């Protein structure tokens, strides 16, 4: 495998819903081991892009490549088994199940054998600081822990590319820091590549290696946090001017 090739690549990807063009000829790449942020105003096409990468939508035109293979239009579970695992907004978990069962579901498809699956569940819970809450029902967890659990479910599936949909929305500063630490640890210790959609621009600037800015379904800018922060178009469309 070509180590220099990007892990995931979008080539001229377009998604139309009837007359609405949600994503227009989008091109960007995610490199192995990086944390890439996807930001932009509401309706910019961030969620659509997420769904296109995870296989929840098939693009109207263009193609998606993962590890240099075309995965355009693959079903979500196929994409997940290849290593693209996503979370959902509002820290979605299986509310009626215990923490242990939540993480077990995450490991079911990708970890074979009862014993290794149990080990995977314990290991994932420890990594996210949930090992003391394994027998609690998910709905009894405070929101910060629920958010960590939603990441734990995804991590149990052994992702190569972890896609986080607004992992910080609605969290207080302490919880935000906790989730940011977890993301940094996942990248550093496990070498998992991370794509995240987030509105907390300050946090995105701190944690991401590179940022892609979307506006009206098209790419407005791409670069390091510093480059993006100083980009005139981005300031006008999204960040606003400090005065």
């Amino acid at each position: 495998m070509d180590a220099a090739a990007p892990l995931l690549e979008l080539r001229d990807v377009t998604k139309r819903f009837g007359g609405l063009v949600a994503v227009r000829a989008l091109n960007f790449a995610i490199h192995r081991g990086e944390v890439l942020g996807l930001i932009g105003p509401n309706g910019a096409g961030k969620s659509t892009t997420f769904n296109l990468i995870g296989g929840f939508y098939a693009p109207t035109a263009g193609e998606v490549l993962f590890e240099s293979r075309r995965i355009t239009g693959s079903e979500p579970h196929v994409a997940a088994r290849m290593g693209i695992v996503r979370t959902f907004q509002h820290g979605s978990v299986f509310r009626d199940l215990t923490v242990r069962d939540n993480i077990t579901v995450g490991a079911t498809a990708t970890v074979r054998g009862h014993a290794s699956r149990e080990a995977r569940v314990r290991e994932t819970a420890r990594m996210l600081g949930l090992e003391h809450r394994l027998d609690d029902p998910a709905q009894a967890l405070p929101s910060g822990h629920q958010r960590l659990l939603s990441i734990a479910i995804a991590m149990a599936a052994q992702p190569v590319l972890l896609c986080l949909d607004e992992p910080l929305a609605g969290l207080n500063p302490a919880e935000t820091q906790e989730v940011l630490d977890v993301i940094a640890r996942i990248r550093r210790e496990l070498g998992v590549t991370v794509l995240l959609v987030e509105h907390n621009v300050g946090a995105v600037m701190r944690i991401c290696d590179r940022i892609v800015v979307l506006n009206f379904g098209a790419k407005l800018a791409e670069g390091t946090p510093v480059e993006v922060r100083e980009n005139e178009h981005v300031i006008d469309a999204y960040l606003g001017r400090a005065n």
Partner: protein
Amino acid sequence: MRAKLGRALLGALVAGLPAILFGVATDGSYLGQMLIWAAAACVQAASLRLVMLIGEINLSTAGFCAIGAYGAGYLGSTFGVPMLASLAFGALLAAALSVPFGYLTFRSKGPYFLLIGFCVSEVVRLLLTRAEFLGGNSGLVGIVPDLPSYAAIAAFLAVLTIVALYIAETSTLGLLFRAIRNHEPLVQAVGINVRRVKIACLAIASAAVGLSGGLQAYANSVIAPGDFSFLLSVYALAYVKFGGDGSVIGACLGAVLLTVISQYMLGLGADQTILFGGALLVGLIVMPRGVYGTVLALLHRLRRGRTATGIAIPVARDGT
């Protein structure tokens, strides 16, 4: 896992052994017949409830019950195939036909899936009225058990089936059922082929309900398309909601209670449909957790009252 299996077997012994002994004692009598009807109703309720775990109300239950009954009845009456083999064939036929049905219909969910299930049940019934080799409108006759103590055998097979459904529910597959009901896209997102899991759920449920149809066929010795209208599915829903959908025990309790009550109502000449409609209403309005769930909650409150210094443990509202 082993503890769960132990509990299942203990439960089966506690409920099943008396039922089987009762079957031996009452074989051939009216009470024996009622035992078989109740056993078949238990399996139907447990089958419907299994599909409720993935969040769907499966009104195709009646259709697959008919397929199981006619599959078993046709082999038994026309070709003289031994009863146990015919029953197994009916169950397997129902399971096999449920796979393409599930493949096509699990693109939809909620009210749409419910309506398709209703249609399938009615289509199966109408096709049966047209199938002359199956006796058409007047039905199939001469389905006679070839083993002694049929009531006991039927009770035994029903208990076995319900234990199997319980094991399915508590397995990893059953965990996926409940996860799908909670958040379907999230299950897909971790690499699980949700449609395949749903089809597996439906196939297991259909095998069980197909067997219940066969049990009914051998109990009545005559089956007609009219026995398997969509109302059978609605009755199964009434059993589950009246008894309590939190556990398979509740579903079976509802099935037994309503079967017994409806037999007395039939004696009074009243229409059992009214009874089942009323039971469904009572289940939904007065006892949302059903008879079994309400009894459990009362017992819990009693126990808490006795240990006045103990710490109150809140019960989950939904017993799943």
